[in-house]
């Protein structure tokens, strides 16, 4: 029963630290990236609940949830949207974790030169033969938006990584 208390203490400390960085406003479209961790806390009834807290300091082996939010504060719609997100250094993409409504999600295993769906991705093994790529091989995630982003609307996409 000690763990939740420690985690709660940790998250209290974390919550007073770094907040997500807001991108510069260009053409009234804004992009925001948020890093969060999941922690176990006790709710009012004393039940353990999982809550998300901003990731300020994270232990190796822990999972971090990234959420990218695209907001259109302008009057015109934005079209042909796609969002590329390199997998951060010293982290591993969590298989199947990328989500995004009305998006086609693809991955790169060649540092962003090409993107494809997981089943079509291969990498070379130690003997130089192609083998199916795994989540650990991914270098980038891409969300291709199927719809335009109307004025005064926002989209959000998400993925998870493990800190090595």
């Amino acid at each position: 029963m000690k763990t939740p208390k420690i985690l709660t203490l940790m998250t209290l400390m974390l919550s007073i630290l770094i907040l997500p960085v807001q991108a510069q406003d260009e053409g009234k479209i804004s992009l925001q990236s948020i890093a969060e961790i999941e922690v176990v806390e006790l709710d009012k009834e004393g039940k353990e609940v999982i809550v998300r807290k901003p990731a300020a300091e994270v232990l190796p082996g822990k999972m971090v949830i990234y959420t990218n939010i695209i907001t259109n504060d302008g009057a015109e719609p934005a079209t042909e949207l796609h969002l590329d997100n390199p997998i951060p250094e010293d982290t591993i993409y969590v298989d199947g974790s990328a989500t995004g409504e009305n998006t086609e999600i693809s991955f790169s295993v060649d540092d962003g030169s090409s993107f494809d769906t997981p089943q079509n991705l291969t990498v070379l093994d130690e003997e130089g033969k192609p083998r199916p790529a795994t989540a650990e091989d991914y270098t980038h995630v891409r969300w291709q938006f199927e719809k335009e982003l109307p004025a005064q609307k926002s989209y959000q996409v998400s993925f998870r990584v493990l800190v090595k």
Partner: protein
Amino acid sequence: MICISRHIKGVLKQFHNLLTAFFACCAISMVLPFEIMAAGALAGSEITNQAILSYRTGGLNQELSTSTSFRVDELVDLNLDVLDINPRIVLAGDTNVPIAYRLTNVGNGTESVRLTSDNAITGDDFSPIASSPFSIYLDDGDATFDIDLDAPYEPGINDPTLASDQSIVIFVFNDIPTGLTEADTGINELRAEAVTGSGTAWTDLGPNSGDNNSTAILGASGGQANASASYLVTTASLTLNKSATISDPDGGNSPVPGAVITYSIVASVTGTGTLDNIVVTDVIPNNTTYELNSLRLNNVSLSDESGDDAGDVGQTSIDTVTVSLGSMDENTTNQTIEFQVTID
């Protein structure tokens, strides 16, 4: 130990024939390093995520990027293993018998580590005695003990400092008391504690307690590691009995040029217990020439090459007969090594 017939004793003396036997228990044995995966992200490092958005608005292609970062906590985690054959076979009264341990920093920060050797362990038959003046030595990186190169350890003065993933071999030397009996066991325990902190796993040591202003958190090991190894007393000892017979070209047994000397070395174990990794070496005497393909073990021919059977001549060591006898105990049949040389 070496019986030589009086007749040829004078001849053999000038050959300076040397005979040595090595036991595993007298040499530091080495084991391949353990592969331990430590945390990849270094303590205090920043992990930055960058997202890049491409879109069209107002008839123009646009690109926008943003980033967010967090700091990696320091995970304080140690691992300690025994490298030697365990238990270590000793004789009562042996001194300076080393046990090699390997300490690995499996955390993601740089840790200084305090070491303690403890011989007062319950559940054994005797307590080994810490060798003096120093019981603990820090290896210089070759995993082989060398009194000139490896540093005697003094707690708080030269605590080893290990980067993430780094290992160090630690030699703990103990003396074995006298008056012990067969199969008595004495345990040595080595304890390692991170100077950053140790205790209950997952304890948060607070802001700035880790490298690069990170928060240090004790890992699964609690920032400490123990390993123990035991000394096992044997009363077994190896006896080598060497003899020689001469056959001269005239059918006699005079040590004249051209005469063939047949050497015989009989290895036997007395007492009780097992001796491991027995290797017998014998230098070919000066002024003689080894008779090719004459090496035999228990009346079976061994090749002069190394690697194909238990023995070789001149391969493992120049001008030397080398025969591995493996493990022997008091019940093992005597092992007989024979070879021939010709007097030049």
